């Protein structure tokens, strides 16, 4: 076998009578056993000088820093392949950070698993496969609140107020919804943990411009409730308009960091990343 891991053979993979074609776990999460270490000071959430990549592969991030304050919106923009999504995953513990640290609310959480970070008040909305398609909208929201032991009906009500269409469709399978509605389910699911930080990986990918404006409005609304937002956006110009803080990444490195407005005004940023 040519693969490194003999247990990951490709033999027999096409025979659906013995092997379920559904992909298994594709993430490479930080392994269990790590603990949070007190580290007071600094921004509410910061991925500080992170260097790392997937598995044993080459580094994708180099000294990359991302931070967001309470109730603020931070946006990560940059060209394709700049490591924007990778940087988000690094902050969430879904790949190995070899150097640097992730700190949340005065604690160093670099060694925590993604689940443990969820428990600490972080929530993540992946770019794709971000809903449970075979479950109803309501069940998706319930699963978002899986770690909570208290009454979740209030939070569910808040989500329905934020996205009224979801209340209407709450008994429908999420897989039957339109693209924009699916994104609302995805964001709703993440909000169900009552997070302090919401991380969104290209929430507007593949939705129409009208739906996109609508989604941005909702995101601003969420931020106003005191939730910090860290998101990757393909539509840089629009995203920077609503951003308190903007990060331009190039090849896994911080190229420009400033307020959203300042970046929009920066001629170099405009020329290279915003199409003039």
């Amino acid at each position, binding site marked *: 076998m040519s693969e490194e891991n003999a247990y990951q053979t490709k033999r027999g993979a096409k025979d*659906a009578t013995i092997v379920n074609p559904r992909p298994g776990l594709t993430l490479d999460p930080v392994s269990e056993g790590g603990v949070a270490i007190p580290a007071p000071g600094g921004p509410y959430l910061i991925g500080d000088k992170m260097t790392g990549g997937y598995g044993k592969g080459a580094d994708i991030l180099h000294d990359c820093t991302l931070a967001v304050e309470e109730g603020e919106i931070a946006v990560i923009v940059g060209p394709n392949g700049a490591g924007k999504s990778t940087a988000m995953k690094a902050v969430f513990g879904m790949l190995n950070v070899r150097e640097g640290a992730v700190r949340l609310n005065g604690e160093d959480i670099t060694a925590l698993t993604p689940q443990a970070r969820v428990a600490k008040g972080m929530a993540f909305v992946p770019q794709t496969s971000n809903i449970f398609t075979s479950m109803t909208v309501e069940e998706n929201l319930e699963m978002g609140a899986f770690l909570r032991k208290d009454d979740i009906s209030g939070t569910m009500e808040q989500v329905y107020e934020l996205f009224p269409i979801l209340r209407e469709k709450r008994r429908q399978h999420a897989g039957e919804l339109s693209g924009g509605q699916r994104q609302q389910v995805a964001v709703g699911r993440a909000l169900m943990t009552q997070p302090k930080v919401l991380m969104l990986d290209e929430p507007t990918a593949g939705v129409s411009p009208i739906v996109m404006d609508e989604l941005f409005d909702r995101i601003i609304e969420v931020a106003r409730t005191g939730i910090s937002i860290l998101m990757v956006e393909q539509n840089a110009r629009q995203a920077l308009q609503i951003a308190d803080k903007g990060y331009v990444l190039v090849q896994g490195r911080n190229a420009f960091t400033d307020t959203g407005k300042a970046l929009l005004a920066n001629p170099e940023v405009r020329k290279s990343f915003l199409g003039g």
Partner: protein
Amino acid sequence: MEPLNALIVLLNFVIVPATAYGAQLALGALGVTLIYGILRFSNFAHGDTMAFGAMATILFTWFLQGAGVTFGPLPTALLALPVGIAATAALVLITDRAVYKFYRAQKAAPVIYVIASLGVMFIMNGLVRFIIGPNDQRFADGERFIISVRTFKAMTGLDEGLAIRTSQGITLVVAIIAVALLFWFLNKTRTGKSMRAFSDNEDLALLSGINPERVVMVTWLLVAALTTVAGVLYGLDKSFKPFTYFQLLLPIFAAAIVGGLGNPLGAIAGGFVIAFSEVGVTYAFKKVLGYLLPETLKPDGLVQLLSTDYKFAVSFVILVIVLLIRPTGLFRGKSL
């Protein structure tokens, strides 16, 4: 009265036995489909897990019988069932820890689990034969019939009799209870929903804080309960012989696949489709037709489409036809 007699013959020889058999296959197929949905592989050790569960129940039944404990008109085995389930649960959890857990940590391809399940199959097969031997074992007691041919004839005055064995009645009742509990669990409880979420999207389940190891453990517990119940019901209805259980693998797989692997509703439908075709195609319809057709058209032969030994062929042909027409099985969708 002739059509009525024909109906009674049909009920007695086809519908009642096939319903009981279908329920047993459905329970077996549900277990296969759960493992396929959660752990992503077809478990070749399933038939032998059924044999182990039945064996554990039988041993405890004998113990109860020896101690003079019975269950009135019902088989004592029903009393022993919880102990059998517990023993099987212990076995599959130990197996998971000793065998499958390692491959999860390695992120092994599902086909590796399939091969591992071949090893588990050998071991469980040997274990069952080692403990109870390869021979037929009798453990049914209590009332043999709910209604016997003689009673039925006396009651109705018909020429043909209908017998319903206790084991057939119990199979149906227990299967309905088991399936109802399973569906309630999967659709209404938090843990059940987390299993469905896991089988839908493992990445997102992780991001939602669902613990994969717990999902896997609960799956094995459900599988232990389903296999033991299926194994005991089959043993009560037919007889207990380790090799027969191993051979049930084909109709059970066929049922799960016909229904659409990974779909519990499909597993149940598949179980009955397979059972009714097996019994129907291998039944000699001479008597039924004899009642229905006019004197001149009465058949000379048995009017048996295939000899009973070809029942595997029937499961198989049904399977191929379904897959050719609907490659994903009767019920589409790959998640629980």
